[in-house]
């Protein structure tokens, strides 16, 4: 019988280490966290969950400081916060869409805590879409598509992403080179964040 290699137990950051990590985050790191939180919160808002990007980021850190989530020091602090924001928001999406909705997992160490309820933290969405929400979601999709009405390829990428396709699948399906796909995604990222 072969001996299994022992995986070293991950070491988790203390509160002081978390605070020190916040103080040393770079400008791009902080900007990335802000943008990521904004998109994730926007996705939750599409389902009627009334939270902002800062709310989501704050909730992620609060859970970490409370010990409900732990930051394994082998993972960068930014990656940890991003994975945890993703995990928390996915848990909310599951509540709306049901357990049949699956997601790609993050690093095992980061996601070892069960996805907990947000009840008491946020206004929970109704499972039944409300008319205002449907109209708002439709308008936002139309706004996005309107920004790229002159570029059929971007519109097709939007449709692919909205159907849950991965980047490589979209590239293959639309026969896009890596450079073309990255250019389209860049336009899309900027367009989605521009609100005027």
């Amino acid at each position, binding site marked *: 019988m072969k001996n299994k290699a022992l995986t070293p137990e991950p070491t988790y950051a203390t*509160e002081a280490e978390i605070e020190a990590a916040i103080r040393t*985050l770079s400008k791009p790191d902080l900007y990335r966290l*802000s*943008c990521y939180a904004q998109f994730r919160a926007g996705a939750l808002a599409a389902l009627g969950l009334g939270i902002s990007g800062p709310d989501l980021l704050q909730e992620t850190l609060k859970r970490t400081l409370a010990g409900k989530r732990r930051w394994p020091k082998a993972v960068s602090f930014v990656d940890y916060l991003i994975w945890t924001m993703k995990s928390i928001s996915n848990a909310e999406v599951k509540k709306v869409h049901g357990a049949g909705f699956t997601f790609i997992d993050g690093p095992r160490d980061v996601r070892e805590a069960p996805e907990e309820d947000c009840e008491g933290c946020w206004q929970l969405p109704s499972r039944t879409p409300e008319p205002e929400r449907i109209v708002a979601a439709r308008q936002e999709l139309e706004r996005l598509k309107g920004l790229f009405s002159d570029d059929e390829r971007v519109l097709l990428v939007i449709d692919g*992403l909205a159907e849950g396709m991965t980047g490589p699948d979209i590239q293959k399906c639309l026969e896009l080179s890596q450079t073309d796909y990255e250019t389209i995604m860049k336009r899309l990222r900027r367009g989605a*964040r521009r609100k005027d």
Partner: protein
Amino acid sequence: MATPVDTERKLQVLLDSLSEAIASVTDAELLADAKAMEEDVDRISENTRQLLLGCVYQVKRARLEEAEHAHRHSVQRLAKIPFALPALPDARRKELGRILHRHPKMQEAALTLQHRNFEAMTDADVERLLSQLHHLGVLAESEDEEPE
């Protein structure tokens, strides 16, 4: 034709995908996005840092308030415990001797800092020390303990 649920879900999935795109672009691309959108990266970054530090501060503050509350509760509890000094000075001295014997560290502090010699303490010193020990909760603890 898309159902209402489809519309919400499509937007949510699209924005999730874009958030993942944000997570994977390089710092240079991210800053180029900011420049193209005329965003003030310095301000946004600093606001984000302050948001996170504010969260740490809130957690620390809550812990401090919890400790203060526990301390206040403990003081209130001690104040409610009846405190009756023995009537006679000799009995008080005996009581103090018994307590200090059970708490050697307390004895060390009381006799080193205030009175070098237990025997040299006045009756008023004994009474004051007993009162202080009551307020520290030592008398209540001593009553709960089994004699050595």
